[in-house]
Structures are given as C-alpha cells and as structure tokens.
C-alpha cells in the first residue's frame, strides 16, 4: 500500500511524504520538498555582495544563519579578518534566532501533537491538551511574548527580523554603544527568567549539567517536574520515543559560534552506533541529483549547477541529496552536542544506539540552556570602545566555501567569484541533509531512514508516530530546496 501524506503542517514550509506500508509497517519512505524558487539561479552574475541582500530571503526562519553564511564565504574570499566585536555581536543575534527557533519548534510545532485525540486516555492527556493544544494552549500567553522579546536583539543588532543587511564579512554595521549593550543584557536576563520558570523550572546550569540518562530521569520527577521540559520527558518515556525515528547513524556538525579560541560548539562527526568521533572533512561533501528534479550536475558542490528539470525519470523532490563521503548524515542540535561531547547526549545515543525522536528534542532544549549563558558572556565581553566591523577589501577570484550552524544544523555556501561577481553559488541547508531524497546508489536520506520500520497498524499514514518522527527533525523546507 502506498500513501502520500501532505500537506504536513507545523513545519517551516511544506513537505510531502510517501510511505510504502506492508502488514502495518512502513517498509520505505520517500520525502519530497515540493517547492522550488530558484535562489541559486538568482545569484548568478550579480555583484558578490548582493548575496547579502538575497540569501537571507531564502528563509524567514533561519534568515540570520543564511546572512552569516553569505558573509562568511565572502570573508573567506577577502583575506581580511572580521572585528572581534562584530563576530561576538553576530553570535548574539545568531544565538537569539536559534533559541527562538528551538522554542518555536518545541511549543508551536512539536508538542501540539500530544494533544491529539488519539492520546485521549493517557494519564497526561488533559494537562497536555490544556498546555499545548495548537493555537489554544495556555503556554502561548508566555511563550510568544518571551520569543518576541528575545527577538528584540535583532532590532538592536540587525534593525529588524527577518531579513537584514547588517551582517557583513567584517562584522556588523552597527557599533553597539553602552546603551545597546545594556539592552541586550536585559533581554537575555529576561529570557533566562522565562526559561528557568516555564520551560525548565530549574536553573539553566542545572539543565546544562545533566550528565546522563539517569540524571535526566531524576530531573523529570524532581523539583523541576512542573516545567514543560519535564512534561515532555514523561510523555517521551511513556510513549518510548527513544525507540522511534532512528537516524542513519552518522551525525555531523560544522562548528557553531565563532570565537577567539575556536567555535563554541566544535566541528566534527560522530557515529551513533559505535560512539566514534572524528573530524569533518568538508571536501568529501557531494550533492547528488539522481532523485531530484534537476538536470545532471557534478557531485562536487563547488562545481555543481542548479537547472530544474521536472521530466527527470525517477525524481521525486526538489531537494538534492547531500552526502558526506558517500553517506547520509543527520544534522541539528543533537549532532552538534554529540560532536561537542556533551555527556547527556552521548549517553542518550549510547542508550538508544541511534538518534531518536526523544534525543533530538532533548538536545534542542539542552542547547537553549547552553546558549543563553554563552550569549550573556558574549554580551558582557563586548567592548563598546572598539570597532564592530572591519573595513571592506576586494573580493578575490576563486572557489570558496563557508559553513555555519543554523538551528537545524549545518548550512554550507559554496561560491565562485570572478571579477567581483558571483559565477557559481550552491547552498546545502540543514534540512537538505535531513530530508534528502535517495541518491544514485538508492540510499535513503535520514528522515527516509527514520520512517522505515515504524509500526503504524491500521492507522496507516494517520499514525501519530509518523508525525512525531517527521517533526522531530524540525524541518525547514523553505531552506531545503531554496
């Protein structure tokens, strides 16, 4: 039996999923990005800096991430370092966007599924419905204002959100004065209050310090039991979400939040089956169009082209299939924290043997607890008497690449500049990795992998486990095919 699900909502953008179901079990899944806007084509031939105006508009959710990737690849072509203050201010804006994304995912996209009728009868159903029902949950009166207030950081640093021209190869356009620095400090102090009450019901440092699965279980039943995080943990335990949505095994991160001593969260790969960690070899990244609606193109993103072709035999998505040394890789908060060696995340992966619906959500919320103190430190270290932006220098000809970590994972920009203009531009977004279609070898992408084997019984595609699995990746479909 073949069933197509869509539109699938409460994700960013639209996604279609086709399931082959036999005897009540998903045997194969095909994930399609059904929208193509042509951003890589739009960039060609324009002045190199125009990417700073165009690229953020790929995505109204990860706008700052896109801006920072475009600025970083320009910086790579300019042999001129950015101002330290500028990188720190960009980190603050980036952290605010990423925290807001994690928050939006948890409260608006992911948790409302537990308020579905199919869970009526569970001990936690009534409380969950009151708290998290889509468009009606009691959390809305606190979370939406907290999110909006956090995004006031963008008003201060970027002017507005989404879509700003404030992020430059040399830093940020506004030299923050003392007043701006103090306002930023206040915003994050207020957000900490929200996170330590409604979300965690515990100090952020306690959450960040959770060392293993046993500590997490104690947390869910202890004084923090009143928080929304603990509510999720109890539901996850009851529904065995640790067994659901198992990823392909390879986790990847490119390094997040630049600093003088290297990134806050490092680059690397992690094998969830064996616990082996290693370096990220970006030169092994390929992008395959075997099952995507595009004409043939070289596998190397630095050489690749994007030419839509809806007549391609066997194609079913506008997403290309990125691979790392030939393998599908999962990206996102879970991958970042696994690569960074956070003990809780490493222990959850060891316990489950693979990434899961539960560990993806835990990693996102853990990251909120890690990022707020980090942002507070960056703000405290801003030197309002020093520059926030280095002077522009000429853009060199050649091939350049830069990667940043968006909320949902690794975002890479491959650019070729010639005479100050864009000769080639390829973007691989986080959800291009996670919601990749099959490649030329027939290997499925991470979500396609994670959906295989789910027992859906008679409910078939309506089974909520399918919904949990799709949403656990926090897909951003508008970035995916761009």
């Amino acid at each position: 039996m073949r069933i197509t699900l869509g539109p699938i909502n409460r994700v960013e953008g639209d996604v279609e999923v086709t399931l082959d179901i036999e005897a009540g079990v998903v045997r194969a899944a095909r994930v399609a990005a059904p929208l193509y806007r042509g951003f890589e084509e739009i960039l060609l031939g324009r002045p190199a800096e125009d990417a700073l105006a165009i690229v953020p508009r790929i995505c109204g959710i990860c706008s700052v991430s896109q801006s920072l990737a475009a600025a970083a690849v320009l910086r790579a072509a300019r042999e001129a370092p950015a101002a330290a203050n500028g990188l720190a201010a960009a980190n603050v804006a980036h952290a605010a966007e990423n925290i807001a994304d994690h928050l939006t995912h948890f409260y608006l996209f992911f948790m409302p599924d537990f308020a579905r009728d199919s869970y009526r009868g569970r001990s936690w159903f009534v409380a969950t419905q009151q708290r998290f029902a889509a468009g009606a949950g009691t959390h809305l009166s606190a979370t939406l204002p907290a999110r909006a207030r956090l995004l006031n950081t963008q008003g201060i640093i970027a002017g507005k959100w989404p879509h700003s021209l404030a992020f430059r190869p040399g830093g940020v356009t506004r030299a923050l004065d003392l007043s701006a620095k103090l306002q930023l400090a206040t915003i994050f102090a207020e957000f900490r209050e929200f996170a330590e009450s409604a979300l965690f019901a515990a100090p952020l440092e306690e959450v960040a310090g959770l060392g293993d699965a046993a500590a997490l279980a104690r947390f869910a039943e202890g004084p923090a039991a009143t928080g929304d995080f603990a509510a999720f943990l109890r539901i996850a335990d009851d529904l065995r979400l640790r067994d659901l949505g198992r990823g392909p095994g390879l986790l990847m991160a490119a390094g997040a939040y630049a600093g003088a001593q290297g990134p806050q969260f490092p680059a690397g790969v992690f094998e969830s089956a064996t616990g082996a960690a290693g370096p990220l070899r970006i030169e092994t990244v390929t992008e395959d169009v075997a099952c995507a609606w595009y004409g043939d193109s070289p596998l190397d993103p630095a050489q690749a082209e994007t030419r839509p072709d809806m007549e391609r035999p066997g194609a079913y998505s506008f997403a290309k299939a990125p691979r790392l040394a030939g393998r599908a890789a999962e990206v996102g908060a879970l991958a970042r924290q696994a690569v960074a060696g956070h003990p809780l995340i490493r222990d959850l992966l060891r316990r489950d043997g693979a990434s899961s619906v539960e560990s993806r959500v835990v990693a996102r919320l853990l990251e909120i607890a890690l990022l707020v103190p980090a942002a507070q430190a960056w703000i405290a270290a801003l030197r309002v008497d020093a520059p926030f932006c280095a002077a522009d220098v000429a853009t060199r000809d050649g091939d350049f690449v830069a990667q940043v970590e968006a909320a949902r994972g690794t975002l890479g920009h491959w650019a070729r500049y010639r005479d100050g203009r864009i000769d080639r531009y390829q973007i691989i977004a986080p959800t291009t990795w996670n919601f990749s279609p099959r490649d030329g070898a027939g290997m499925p992408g991470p979500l396609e992998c994670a959906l295989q084997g789910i027992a859906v019984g008679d409910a078939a595609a309506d089974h909520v486990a399918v919904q949990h699995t799709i949403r656990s990746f926090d897909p951003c479909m508008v970035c995916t095919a761009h």
Partner: protein
Amino acid sequence: MKTLVWLQAGSCGGCTMSVLERGLFDALRRMGLRLLWHPSLSLDEGGRVRALLDSIVAGETHLDILCVEGAALRGPGGTGRFDRFAGRAMLDWLRDLAPRAGACVAVGSCAAFGGLPAAAPSTDAVGLQYADDAPGGALGADYVSAGGLPVVNVSGCAPHPDWILETLQALAAGCLGPADLDVFARPRLFADHLAHHGCARNEFYEFKASAEAPYERGCLMESLGCKATQAVGDCAQRVWNGGGGCTRVGSTCIACTSPGFQNGKDFHHTPKIAGIPVGLPLDMPKAWFVALAALSKSATPARVKTNARSDRIETPPEPGKA
C-alpha cells in the same frame, strides 16, 4: 466570527515569522477573526486540509479573508508545478480560492508583486495581481474579491507585523475600501509615507553628510544604495523588533516595499551619473537636489561631518553651542 485562511506559496515563511511577534492567535481573536487554517500553526493536516479547501472552493464554507504569503509560481510552462500543495499546483488553489474570499490579502512583496522569486529565470514567479509593477499576475488585472476589492498588497520583505495586522483588523471591521489603497493597492495606513520619513539619520541627510562605509553613521543615500527616499512605508516611524529599523543600524534600504525591488543590482552602492545619484528622492526636481545638496554640504557643522564618517559619535553636541 469572520473566517481566515492563510496559505504559503513561493514563500520563505518570513511574513508569518514577522506577524508571530504580535502573538497572532490572540490578535486575530480580538479582531473577531477565526483562523480556519495556517500551515505553520494549525493542528490539521493532509486530508482535513484538502477537505477544508475543497469546501471553500465549492462554496460550502464561507471564507472572509484569504491571506497568501509568497509568490505564485506559474512555471514550468504555466503548470505551476514548481509549487505543489495538497495534491495540486498551488497556482490552481489560489485561482480557485481567491474568487471565494471576501478579501484577498497578499502578505509581503512576493505575494504582492513577485518579490525575490520573480528574479529567477526559470519559475515564472509573479504576485497575485501584479508582475512587478504591471497589473496581471496570477489572478489577472480584473480580479476583484467577493467583497469588491482588488488584492490588498501588504508589501515589504518582511512587512512590519502591524502593517499585516492593521490591514486584517480594518478588513475585519469592514473599514478598508478602495480609497484606502494606493496606486499599487497597498494600504495607505503604511504606504502614505516614505521609508525615509523619521529616519534616525535625518540630520546627516539634511546636510548631505554621507557614510562611505557601511558601518559609518552618516546618511546612506549618497553612496551606500539607500532607497528610503523612494520607497513607501512608515518604516522609520514604527519600531521594529522592539526598537530597531533598517537604517538605524546601517542596514541600507533596498526598497523592499516596491514592486520589482529584487531587480536592483549592487544593493550596497548608489548608482551615480556625473557624481549625482540616479535615484533621487521621490518628486524632487534634479536641479533643486543638486543645488540644495551643494548648499547643505557647504553648511555642514564639523560635528555632523565628523560623525558621518565614524562608526560612533566622535563629537557629541555641545550644550549651549550652535
């Protein structure tokens, strides 16, 4: 209560992100609007969504307001297959749903005029009722909603959340008529102003004390591509994200409320002929501009001249001194 459906076509989702700042759900409820469906926020998906949309098309479910975010992608070859939604081309859904709606609101410049997707060579992206500044678009120049309005174009990339919400509020209250829309059907509640009005850099503008690098505090118009004197929007009179605004932080205005803004090239540099910016302030005769600019420059106080070329206030105003 009046009903509202929100769809995302060739969109980045940024207009929804903008309006979420105002806690969309409560804001709509206070206006007396019932949100039947929103792709990012509602519980229902799949078959239930198709059933809802089908019943609106069939006239069985009354729709007061249709909000569309994102460009209408007509390609390839007029099929609309670059944007498939709920089993069909989104283009076909838009054409079936829009005539049923009491009012149709294009949220953002993509839905209004085509926006950035319209710069792509392959997708044939347009706005609902305009292709850049040419009437037509996906629904055609003759389209009027069931309530007798053209598509209401809340342009901007992304628009201010209150441009969106005040437009919906006016429609919900029945107080937005054709006379409340400008020449491109943008609500005059924000389009009767220029983005420049109230600019925090106005003193630099007046003296033509210009920034030469993007991090300098001076006016962005002469060298850094700022189009705020040519673009509609009360951008500088409202605050964005708590206290911001593009030109406040040195994010040059790219006229994102204007049809065809995406066709601009070299956004960060002001095109000039013989040293004079090509894009002069709207309705300003060139000779006057040149004469006034020369006069202003000759009268620029040292404080303004110094600060214009600095990333911070080097010279504060001295109390008691002119």
